[in-house]
């Protein structure tokens, strides 16, 4: 019985570890796509954020400064995407692909300059704190390696991610600026006639998505592990993008989709450790198969924001 409870604790803990970087990034996806701009550059932004976060955390010896750098780094890539897509009416998919090359390219280039030619950073001295250990002292609140410890004694980034889900939901659905973002994404012409600046809203939303993706990358490089390496972010941004669509362009939906994906990973690792007679490579497909099955079977039809991916040219409407 005790082992069973611990195993469940392990699966939940692994779920949270896996999901956190995805939650940040897919929230970024929700914000930008709600404003009508497709951002498939999330992967590149995450990659750059993971590097910027680890590099800054290494040089300043402080994970919070790392997190800030990661956010700003992602935001700069977001700005580039916004300039291309909003100001110059570039095709959003193409610009996103460019960002996916630019992010890793820039990260590795700077890494080579700062770290003596290496495409990875050195190990950061201080990682993200564990809030429960920080507040109550290590092992004081819950016995270490018990169920509660496995589930709740997580890095600060995990708690921040859950809080941000609430925050993004609140801003999008309960504030004026959120309503404007959604209006611009549904029908920019109508929004413009009401005096909303489509350009400003979209710039803000795309840059926020960069910020969130950058944080997602850093959640990987300064909490899950403690350094950046050139293969650390490989496909996470695309999974986050899928989770956002899977979650019907809603923050709470994206959260559930990320948790589902992380949960499937946790289950896969757990089953693998128990020596179930399923080949490892089949087991490794579990998260993806589960996602497809649930998408087709339970989620049903998803409706994207009305004006998504459409180029909005102000001059045509004035």
């Amino acid at each position: 019985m005790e082992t069973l409870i611990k195993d469940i604790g392990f699966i939940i803990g692994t779920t949270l570890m896996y999901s956190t970087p995805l939650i940040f990034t897919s929230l970024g996806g929700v914000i930008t796509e709600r404003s009508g701009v497709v951002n498939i550059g999330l992967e590149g932004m995450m990659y750059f954020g993971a590097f910027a976060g680890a590099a800054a955390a290494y040089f300043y010896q402080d994970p919070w400064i790392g997190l800030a750098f990661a956010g700003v780094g992602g935001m700069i890539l977001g700005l580039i995407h916004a300039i291309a897509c909003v100001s110059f009416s570039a095709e959003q998919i193409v610009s996103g692909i460019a960002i996916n090359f630019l992010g890793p390219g820039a990260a590795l280039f700077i890494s080579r300059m700062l770290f003596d030619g290496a495409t990875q950073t050195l190990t950061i001295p201080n990682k993200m704190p564990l809030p429960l250990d920080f507040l109550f002292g290590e092992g004081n609140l819950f016995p270490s390696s018990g169920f509660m410890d496995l589930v709740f004694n997580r890095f600060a980034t995990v708690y921040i991610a859950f809080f941000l889900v609430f925050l993004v939901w609140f801003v999008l659905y309960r504030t004026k600026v959120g309503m404007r973002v959604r209006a611009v994404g549904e029908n920019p012409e109508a929004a413009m006639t009401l005096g909303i600046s489509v350009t400003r809203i979209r710039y803000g939303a795309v840059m926020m998505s960069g910020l969130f993706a950058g944080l997602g990358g850093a959640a990987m490089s300064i909490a899950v592990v403690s350094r950046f390496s050139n293969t650390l972010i490989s496909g996470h941004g695309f999974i986050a993008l899928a989770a956002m669509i899977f979650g019907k362009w809603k923050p709470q939906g994206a959260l559930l989709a990320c948790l589902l994906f992380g949960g499937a990973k946790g289950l896969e690792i757990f089953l693998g450790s128990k020596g179930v007679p399923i080949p490892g490579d089949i087991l490794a497909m579990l998260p993806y198969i589960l996602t497809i099955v649930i998408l087709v079977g339970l989620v049903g039809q998803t409706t994207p924001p009305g004006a998504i991916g459409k180029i909005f040219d102000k001059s045509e409407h004035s």
Partner: protein
Amino acid sequence: MKKLSVVLTVLACCAMFLAAGPVSAKKFKVAMVTDVGGVNDQSFNQSAWEGHKRAKDELGVKIAYKESKQDADYAPNMETLTDAGYDLIWGIGFLMGDAIKNTALINPDQKYAIIDFAYGDETPKNVGCAVFQEEQPSFLVGYIAGKMTKTNKVGFVGGIKFPLIEKFEYGYMAGVKLANPDCEVLSQYAESFTDAAKGKAIANNMYQQNADIVFHASGGVGDGVIEAAKEKGKWAIGVDKDQNFLAPDNVLTSAMKRVDNAVFDMIRQMTEGKFKGGQAVVYNLSNDGVGIAPTSSKHVPKAILDEVDALVAKIKGGQITVPATKKEYDAFVK
């Protein structure tokens, strides 16, 4: 007139000397193509480049490298270096197997070499293959793990399950069992070489099940394994190079693959006109192709390291044959 003949003689001598000079000490040119990791990946490619640099210092060859940004770059990079007229061109890593073979068949007069890949009977005459007996250093670190575990339980995390990685697994398990027949070995594959989070989760799970030492042979996945050891205050064992710098208090030892030595060795043979094309050269303990990390002495007691040295002598002498496959392992533990 006499003056003129003296001048002419001197000139003739100079000319002869100049002409003869380069021939007597021909400058060899060697280049390598990295895989996607790049030349400073702190792993394989970097180690190969160090071998090149040693060849430059000790043998006076000219060296160069070309980095591949993606798998599709291997063949074009090979072509570029072939056209540039190098004496020997290296492909670093098994991913380049096809690219090297195809280029070598088109350019039969150009010498090539590859790390970690053997073509068997189909090896082109102008390709030299350097392969390693990874099971040997894995056996040694397994022995250390078996001696040092306090819980009688150790772990192995593999990258993707295929014969090369299984050599690490079975060599390690054999070492553990030799040191400590009662010790249990947990073994799990991540089915990835990049998913650090998965490595961390697998290692966490092993530590939770009371294993206290985990060896990984899993590339980037290993970052997560070492991270888990650091967070839980347990031991991890590194791979390919000395990984102690990643977590100085938690990396017990590392199973090293001396790619640099293999590269240097094959370049030296080439400069001596003894290039071994058309076959695979095996690097193992006997020719310093593999070994355990020099930092092992930090955490491993001297008595155990002495036993390891005795094992090395036995492996070199042929008294112990380290198993590299499941079949050999089953026979070994019997």
